[in-house]
Every structure is written in C-alpha cells, then in structure tokens.
C-alpha cells in the first residue's frame, strides 16, 4: 500500500508536469497578452516593446525551460494583469470556490442519490417517471436560466436570500443550489441504472429470501454495490465544479477560481493561467486518487494497480 502511494505520487508529479506543459503551449498558441494589456490606442511599437520586456518574443522552448526552472523553484511569477503573485491569487480564491463546490456537490449527491435510488426502487411507476422528467428538465435548462430564475424567485420575490456576493452562509444557498442543479441529473441517472443492475443480482435475491425488506436491502446493501460508477460520476462532477463554475460564479458574483481562470484566459495572463491550472490539476489528481481509494473500499475484489 505504501509503495502504491509512493508510486501514485510520482505518477502524479508527471501528470502535473504534463498538465503544466500542455497549458504552457496551448495558452501561448492562443496569442500573447501584450496587446490585451495595453489600451486600444496603443501602437504596435508599444506592443512590441511590452512583448519584449515580458520576454514573450523569445523562442518558445527557451521560455518553456525557464518556466520549468521557475516551477521547480516554486516560483510561478506574477500575474500580468493583477501584478501579484499568481499562486497567491489562486490560493486566495480557493476557499470561496471550495465552499461553493463542496456545498453544491453535497446537495447534488443527497438529492441525486435519493432521486436515483427512489426511481430505481420504484422503477416504472408514476414517481419514477416524475423524477425522470424533473431530472431531464433541470439538466436541459442551462445554468444561467436556473440561476436567474432562482434570483428572481428567492431574492426578488420572496426576499429569502441575497442576490449575490459572498456574505456568509446565507449567500451561499442560491449559488450552491444553482450549481447543484446540473450534476443531480448524472448522479441520479447513474445511480438508477447501476442500482437496477444490482437489484438483478442473485445476492439481492438471497437477501430477499433472508427476509430483508426491499427498502432495507436497497439502502443497506445494494447501495454500496451500485456505488462504483456513481462515485466516479460524483468525482468527475466535483472536479468540473471546481474549475468550471464560471457561469454560477458570474451570476452570483461569487469570487471563485472559475471566474479567475476565465479572466486569466481571456487576458492571456500566462502566469495566472499556469498557476491556476497547476492548482486545479493537483486537485484533480487528488480527487482521482481519493476516488480510486474509495473504489478499493467499495469493492474488495479490486486490487491496487
């Protein structure tokens, strides 16, 4: 086990390096920031001068090697746009993102798993169809729709929650619900499909024969058997939330990493993009490691490596 973790750690370092490399080249392919940093009136000479002073006119490979060197020494440079340590900026935004993503995933898991379980358990009944319809509607209406409608109803009409901003728990409710709306669908559907598989298995029939009520069986037994793909979907959705909550963050003016990355990308703020992708990839790698560990817990037949 310890050996496995060490191995995994080394792999992860490679993966982080990979992500860093991909991002390094990809972001540079999309144009350099010199133009974007200057006001529109700036002349081409000014742009060229800035480019030179930032070192973006050097050969890509040289820049890359420099970048690697910096990275090894833990130096991610200053954001071009904010003029602050890029890493610092990302880390500052991380807590807000985590608040949002964690509470959203919790909501989504609770609702999604429940909905999935109920609809598998009550397969082909009115309630199953109802849940399906609801799930697909929430999935097909875009995040901004959900967000804006939530604001209209809960903030403007009912005055229950503030429209936006980050002032403690109360302002977390609407964005978290909005962000949770989407992943409910994949979680619930995966749960349903997987649980239906499990309910077919002969060990479930054994449990029936042993006198477990269907509900008890599903909740206490089948759930764990069915969890494998669901956990995967959850981990994926959680990952997407960390970096991909841009729309929700924008609508609720939630100062998270998603917005920061988008800003950084559209400003071609190379150091900031690199720093955020680095943090994000570390998080992903952590998530996928945890997921793999959860696999081991769920199904003892799965072996490490």
């Amino acid at each position: 086990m310890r050996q496995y973790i060490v191995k995994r750690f080394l792999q992860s370092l490679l993966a982080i390096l990979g992500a860093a490399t991909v991002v390094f080249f990809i972001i540079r392919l999309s144009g350099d920031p010199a133009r974007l940093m200057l006001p529109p009136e700036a002349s081409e000479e000014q742009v060229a001068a800035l480019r030179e002073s930032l070192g973006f006119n050097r050969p890509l490979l040289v820049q890359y090697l420099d970048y690697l060197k910096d990275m090894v020494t833990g130096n991610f440079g200053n954001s071009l746009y904010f003029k602050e340590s890029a890493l610092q900026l990302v880390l500052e935004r991380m807590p807000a993102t985590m608040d949002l993503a964690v509470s959203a995933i919790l909501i989504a898991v609770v609702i999604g798993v429940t909905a999935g379980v109920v609809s598998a358990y009550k397969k082909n009944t009115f309630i199953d169809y109802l849940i399906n319809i609801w799930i697909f509607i929430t999935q097909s209406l875009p995040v901004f729709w959900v967000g804006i409608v939530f604001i209209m109803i809960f903030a403007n009409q009912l005055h229950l929650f503030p429209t936006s901003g980050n002032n403690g728990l109360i302002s977390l409710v609407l964005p978290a619900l909005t962000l949770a709306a989407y992943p409910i669908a994949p979680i619930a559907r995966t749960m349903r499909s997987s649980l239906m598989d499990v309910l077919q298995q002969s060990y479930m029939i054994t449990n029936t024969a042993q006198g477990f009520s269907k509900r008890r069986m599903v909740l206490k037994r089948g759930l764990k058997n069915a969890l494998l793909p669901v956990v995967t979907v959850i981990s994926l959705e959680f990952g997407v939330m960390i970096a991909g909550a841009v729309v929700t963050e924008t609508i609720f003016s939630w100062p998270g990493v998603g917005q920061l990355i988008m800003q950084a990308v559209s400003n071609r703020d190379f150091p900031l993009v690199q720093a955020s992708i680095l943090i994000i990839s570390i998080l992903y790698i952590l998530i996928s490691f945890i997921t793999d560990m959860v696999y081991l817990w769920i199904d003892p037949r799965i072996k490490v490596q």
Partner: protein
Amino acid sequence: MSEEKLLEIKDLSVAFRKNQVTTSVFSGLSFDIYQGETVCLVGESGSGKSVTAKAIMRLLPTDLVSYPEGEIRFNGQDLLSHSEREMEQIRGDQIAMVFQDALSALNPVYTIGTQMVDLIRLHAKEKLSRRQALAQAKKLLAQVDIRHADEVVKQYPFQLSGGMRQRVMIAMALSSRPRLLIADEPTTALDVTVQSNILKLIRQLKEQFGMTILFITHDLGVVYEMADRVLVLRQGELVESGTRDEIFTRPRHAYTKQLLNSMPRIYFQEQTELP
C-alpha cells in the same frame, strides 16, 4: 411427527415469459409437507427443483414469471396472494432458504461478518448489539465446521473456498431457526466429513426446534440419511413420492429405478473392517 400440513402445494404451475413466448416449467404440481418432517426432493437436473423452491419463497422474477394456476399454502395462508410486504415477514424468519449457487448468493462487497450480523439482527427476537450478533455469527460458523471463524468473519466471499461459502449460507439460513428450511443442494461442495457433520447439525436442529425441511439434493446417500419422505421430480412432473424406504426398496417409476442404478458405488469388501 404431527399430521399438520405445514406446506401444501396444489396444482401449481409456473411458466417463464420471454419475448412473448411462455415456457412452462411445470404444471399441476402438488405435494404436501407435514410439520416436522424432512422431505427430499430429488430429480433430474433441470426438472424444476430450484424453481419450486423459489416459487415457495416467491423469489422468481415477477415480471418474467407467471403462475397461471395453483396455490402455495404455508401454515394455511396462501403465499401466492400475499403482498410483498407480507412475504417479507415470512421470508428468512418462517421459511429460510439455502441457495444452490453459493458464490453469487453472497454479496461480494461485504464481509461475511457484516452479512451475518445484519441477518442475525434482522431476525433476532430481542435487540442485539453488533458485537453480540457477531459472537453469535462466529458460533454459527463453528457449528458448520468452519475453523478460524474469527478470521472468516473478516473475509469477503471471494476469499473463501466453495465449500466454505456454502457453509456460510447454511449457517445464515439456520440462524433464525426457521419453521421451514428449504435447502437447495446445500452440501454439493462439501467433503464427506463436513457434509456428515452438517447433516447431523440439521437433524439436531430439527429435533430441537421441530424444524421442517425441504431438502433438494441429487446425492442419494444424503437422501437416505436425511429423508422421511422422498419426492422424485422429472421434467416438471412428480413421478413418484413415498417414504424413504419405499423409494429405496420398492421404486415404482422407471426413472427412480434408473436413478438408483446410476449411483456410483464403492464396493468395499473390507469396508466393515475399517477401524
């Protein structure tokens, strides 16, 4: 042995439906089991023994199976007209079953201990703590000749040998002291020493608690050792039934005779001289 009928099966028919085609497994099957007796169901492979057992427990997949006619009466109640909720009261508690296929019958992701503890607590008359239930589980495992029960409870089904899994299933079925035990080829994977111990255990429980047993097996030796009465099934038809001695000494139906004849035997000349 009382004259009270514990289980009555009257004109039972079972059919599987698949793509609008229905295949009948058997029709018009009838037999009774009296309180406290051991009935052995023997017969050809594929003749419907397991289906009968599952039908009694109402375990056949409801959307694929139909019971065009017949009744299954347990203790006077018609099981076929029971709701699922009512069946839950009966299963495991009143009627317990040992499945033929022990590997797939155990949940792969829980330890033996967890599965046994849950079951024991489910049927316990008074509230049991997990620890108490675990102790009981270990005791049960020991009774079915499992050594190192302490370790086995911590293991997952795939880590056990075929015979061990089968014994776990038996232990689980016996844990609730059911009124009727349906054992579907429970000893197929057991070596003879263990098998004879288990048979002994079952007989003992039967005596102690008046358990009634429906024993499905192909092993005539086991039949001989266990049965009060024997039912012979062939292609969904009850071709013969009678007391053990009747069947073994005066088999009437050709199939029964064939069955007895094809029994492999060890001709021990010196058998009696064994120490």
